[in-house]
């Protein structure tokens, strides 16, 4: 029985894929702190008539714990500070921070706590968890792909779709899609 790794990273090692052959389970297992440098949390919302608008959160923190014994027990915790939202357009940023959308003054944190991690491929996994924003919590799922493990640094590419209306952020629909496409690069440093 191959050892199962928590988190997404070590899946590759399980299969001894050539690219990740160097990643041994024992190497990937452990706790990582998400590093703001090298990480990004970007999102896109489609617009009626085509195109969309992009934004990113500048401040966030989190941890990734890869369990050496049971993949399903891997954990991902992520806290995003909506005050740090940036779209390149100051008026839109102010709108997003206001009570029209994030209400950042009263809800300074958006939190994601994983509840389950399921391997879906050689280097991919489905992370399900609970997302809390504006006091509302719903289950969400994200796809994570291992990007690499080098030194004490592990990298994941995470994507997922979130329906903003459930979190009291439906303003602007249908001009702006209800679906928020997330595209994150999470760089974790061991320790």
């Amino acid at each position, binding site marked *: 029985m191959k050892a199962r790794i928590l988190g997404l990273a070590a899946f590759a090692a399980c299969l001894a894929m050539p690219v990740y052959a160097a990643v041994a389970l024992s190497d990937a297992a452990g706790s990582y702190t998400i590093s703001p440098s090298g990480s990004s949390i970007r999102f896109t919302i489609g617009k009626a*008539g085509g195109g969309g608008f992009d934004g990113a959160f500048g401040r966030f923190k989190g941890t990734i714990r890869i369990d050496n014994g049971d993949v399903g027990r891997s954990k991902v915790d992520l806290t995003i500070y909506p005050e740090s939202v940036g779209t390149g*357009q100051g008026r*839109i940023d102010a*709108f997003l921070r*206001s*009570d*029209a959308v994030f209400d950042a003054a009263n809800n300074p944190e958006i939190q994601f706590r994983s509840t389950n991690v399921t391997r879906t491929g050689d280097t991919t996994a489905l992370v399900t968890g609970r997302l809390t924003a504006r006091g509302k919590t719903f289950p969400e799922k994200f796809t994570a792909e291992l990007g690499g493990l080098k030194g004490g640094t592990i990298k994941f590419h995470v994507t997922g779709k979130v329906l903003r209306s459930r979190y009291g952020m439906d*303003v602007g629909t*249908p*001009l702006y899609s209800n679906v928020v496409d997330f595209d994150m690069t999470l760089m974790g440093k061991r320790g």
Partner: protein
Amino acid sequence: MQSIINTSTRYGWAMIILHWLIGVIFIGQFVLGYVMMRTPSQRTSFELIQLHKSFGFLLLGLIILRIAWRLRNAAPALPASVGMLERRTAPLAHFALYAFQIALPLSGWALVSVSTLEIPTMPFNLFVMPNLPLTESDASESFWTSAHWYLAYAGIALVALHVLAALRHHFLLRDSVLARMITPSSGGE
């Protein structure tokens, strides 16, 4: 059927309905525009602005219909009692009213077209209205915001003059000028 079109002394239903519909929406748009810029809630403000855009396009459609109708169907002559000065200035005031009815929605359309916020326009959430072929920039947005604002205040001042003139005709001069814009049965000499 006869009462739909104007005659030489009476307004038909088509002009009467278009006149009041446009008048009510025009004044409503002024109030909505005033309120939406002063609403503290960003969300409510955003939604009111979208509503203002929807009614603006409705207004533009109605006024195009009205001008087309007017070009094919001349307005009735003024009652004989109307003096020479008014006989000359009233058409100018009416022309100016038409000009504002066209200029206001168009300046609003220009404003949303050049806005760097790039907010799409969907009148009443029915369809996407394309932008005018204008280049977006902060400077253009600021120009059209001012233009729309000045046109709105000048337009509402003209409407106030128009309303006062109509009331003068009805209550002081006691002629048929206001009444014939209410029903085609009024206005016969």
